[in-house]
C-alpha cells in the first residue's frame, strides 16, 4: 500500500467512524456501535496494510482481533489509532465538501436499514469530465440483494443523493457504489 492509498484508507475510516471520532463521548453501544464493529475490517483492517507507526499499531491490533469481531476495548483502541492517523493527515482540499455531502446523505437516508454499515464519499470527475461525488455504501456481507428491503433502499438511494448534494451546496453529480465489507477489504480492492 502506497502513501496515497494509506491516506485514502484513513479518510474512509474517518468517514465510517465519524460519529465516534467527532464526539468521543458518544455512547459506545447500540446500533451505530455495532455497525462500527461490523465495518472494522474496512476502517481498521485496510489502513493496517500501510507503513509507519500508526499502521503498525493498527496491524498489531488487527492481528490480536484475528477473524472474530473486535471487542469493545479493541474498537476503542482502533478508534484512537485512527483518530491520530486522521489528525496527522489533516484536511485536503475537498474534504470539507465531501464531509458536508456525507452528513447530508445521512440526514436524507434517515434510519439505516440493517444491512447498511455506513457511507464514504470521494470527489472526482465522471466519464465526461463533469465534477462528481462518489458516495460509497458499505454493506454487510450477508446482505440479500434479492430482498425487497434492499431493492427499496436501492431505488430510493439516487434521490437521496441528489437531495443531499443540493442540501450540501454542491453542484456535483452524485453517483453511488455499493460494496460489501469483503469487497472493500479484499487486497487490491478499489478503495473508496
Amino acid at each position, binding site marked *: 500500500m502506497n502513501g496515497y492509498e494509506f491516506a485514502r484508507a484513513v479518510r474512509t475510516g474517518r468517514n465510517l467512524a465519524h460519529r465516534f471520532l467527532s464526539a468521543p463521548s458518544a455512547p459506545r453501544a447500540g446500533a451505530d456501535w455495532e455497525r462500527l464493529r461490523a465495518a472494522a475490517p474496512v476502517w481498521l483492517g485496510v489502513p493496517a496494510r500501510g507503513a509507519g507507526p500508526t499502521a503498525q499499531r493498527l496491524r498489531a491490533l488487527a492481528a490480536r482481533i484475528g477473524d472474530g469481531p473486535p471487542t469493545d476495548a479493541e474498537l476503542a483502541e482502533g478508534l484512537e489509532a485512527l483518530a491520530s492517523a486522521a489528525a496527522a493527515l489533516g484536511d485536503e482540499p475537498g474534504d470539507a465538501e465531501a464531509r458536508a455531502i456525507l452528513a447530508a446523505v445521512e440526514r436524507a437516508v434517515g434510519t439505516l436499514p440493517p444491512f447498511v454499515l455506513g457511507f464514504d464519499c470521494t470527489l472526482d470527475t*465522471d*466519464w*465526461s469530465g*463533469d465534477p*462528481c461525488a462518489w458516495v460509497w455504501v458499505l*454493506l454487510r456481507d450477508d*446482505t440479500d*440483494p*434479492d430482498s425487497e428491503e*434492499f*431493492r427499496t*433502499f*436501492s*431505488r430510493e*438511494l*439516487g*434521490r437521496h*443523493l*441528489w437531495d443531499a448534494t*443540493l442540501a450540501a451546496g454542491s453542484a456535483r*453529480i452524485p*453517483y*453511488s*457504489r*455499493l*460494496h*460489501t465489507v469483503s*469487497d472493500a477489504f479484499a487486497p487490491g*480492492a*478499489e478503495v473508496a
Partner: protein
Amino acid sequence: MSLADDLLEQAEHLAQRDPTRPKQASLRRAISSAYYALFHLLIREATAALVADARLRELVSRAFDHGEMKQACRPFAAGALPDHLRAVTDATVPNDLRTVAEVFAQLQQSRHEADYNVARGFSRPDTLGLLARVRGAFEAWGRVRTQQIATVFLVNLLLAKKWAR
C-alpha cells in the same frame, strides 16, 4: 415486447446467473444492457413525441447524444429547472420524473465503467441495486409519461445543448 423491455429483461437474466459466484462479464453486460434499456425507452418516447413520420423517427433517434442527454437530465434530477424550461411548464418536477433523470445519469456512468474500466470489479449487490433502480425508472416513467412536463423532459433530451447557447 419492445427493445427497451427486452434489454432490461436480458440485464436481469444476466445479473441472476451464477448467484453464488457471478462472472464479471455477466455483471458488466447486465449493467450495460440496463443502461441501454433506459436509453432506448427514452429515445423511443422522445422521437414519438417529436416526429409524426414513423420512418423519420429512426433517423431522428440517431441525433441523440449520450453526454448531452446526461446534461439534460441534471436539472430534472435536481428538481430545479432553468428559467427557459420553467417558462414552458406550470408543474414542479414530479418525483417520478426526478427518478427517471437521476437513474439515467447514474447508469450512464456505471455503463461506462462496466464497459471500459477493467480495473474496477462489480459486485452482485451493486449490480442488482442498479438494476432495481432501472426497473424503478421504467415504472416511474409509466406513471409520469402522459404529463406535460414529461414531454418537456423528452424534448430537452435532444435540444438542451442548443437551448443553453
